[in-house]
């Protein structure tokens, strides 16, 4: 009885990090599927599973009227840019869009790539988009 009480008094606290590992994994998967998070980041241990890696992502800014590309401003905040590329949810895209001044209605898009070994083709495809007005 005494040993039972002693055991009860000392919970296995050292298991907390294992629980955290699993919780963070679940949160990362949710963000991958709902917000477009790159699987290479965020604590889910899914690096080396997909070509959708951070540096494979890119932004496209173009005129809504003519679809002509518009160069991205040079003084764009690096952290905001990286944030929108890694995790292009609505909040981060809005924050990035707020930094970009355009003279005509434009669209900002986040793109990533996929690869098909049988054809050898790398396909770029859109992950997220936001309209920006002057």
């Amino acid at each position, binding site marked *: 009885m005494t040993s039972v009480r002693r055991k009860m008094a*000392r919970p296995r606290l050292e298991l*907390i990090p294992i629980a955290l590992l699993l919780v963070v994994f679940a949160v990362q998967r949710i963000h991958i599927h709902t917000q477009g998070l790159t699987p290479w980041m965020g604590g889910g241990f899914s690096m080396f599973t997909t*070509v959708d890696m951070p540096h494979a992502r890119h932004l496209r800014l173009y005129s809504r009227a003519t679809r002509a590309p518009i160069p991205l401003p040079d003084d764009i905040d690096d952290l905001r840019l990286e944030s929108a590329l890694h*995790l292009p949810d609505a909040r981060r895209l809005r924050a990035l869009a707020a930094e970009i001044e355009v003279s005509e209605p434009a669209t900002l898009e986040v793109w990533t790539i996929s690869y098909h070994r049988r054809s050898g083709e790398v396909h770029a495809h859109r992950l997220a988009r936001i309209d920006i007005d002057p």
Partner: protein
Amino acid sequence: MERVGWMSLVLLVVYVVMHVAPADAGGGGLLRVVAALMFVGAVGVFRLWRRPIFWFAVALLPAFQVATAWWRTDDHIFLLVYWFLGLGLALTQKDCTRSLATVATLLLGGVFFLATLTKLISPEYVTGDFFSYMYLVDPRFSRFTYAAGLADKVDLLRNTSAVEDLGVNNLIVLTLQGYQQVGVLAQPFTWLVVGTEAALATIFLWPAESKPLHWARDVGIVLFVLGTYALAPVVLFGLILSVLGIAQARTRFGQIACLMLVPLLVLYGVVLAATGIGELSIAVP
């Protein structure tokens, strides 16, 4: 326990030197100073590292990095938080060496389990598309494609720059050079990697304890660290796994071999930083 404590201090110093850049979140410089003071304090004050509170404070350093930008934080920084936290929590237990071994074994098993699971549920991975791409585009892998005579040096360089230009040129599709031949390397490697990680997950999470299992764990982690980090030189990740290896080791071989991995990886990191070998690329002909 002493060995694990000292090696975890080495881990802390390497983390601060390699990852807490002053530009990071605007407080990197301060973090570096705080961590250095912690280290000096641990060495100077008799057995400070035996106190849980010390490791909880240490865990806050990588935790701060995770909290400020989790979406751009590498997985091994998360693992560092779990380890320092686990170290502190294990010290609150009566048999702290045993608790530490439990944390290390379960963290290693958990990490390999998640690495296996995420590969098996990724269609790009199981079809072999992922490593086919890496062997054609990523210089860490394409040097082997070139060495095996499967693709021309110029074609591999073109692949890398073509993918980089995909966004700049607003292209939708491009075809990689040499894609027909590279399956010979990519397909076996795909299954070798996931098979190795699945085997490691199994031996670390196996519920029963036995001498052959302890040997398998110790040999497995040493071979994994040596094999993986020679190819993909993420020195800090290798160091974390080595320290976890020391903490979980039940054989003399495992304790010594994992201990030797620590200076070996630190030296490797210094050589990489000094020579730039980590940026391995195929020289332009």
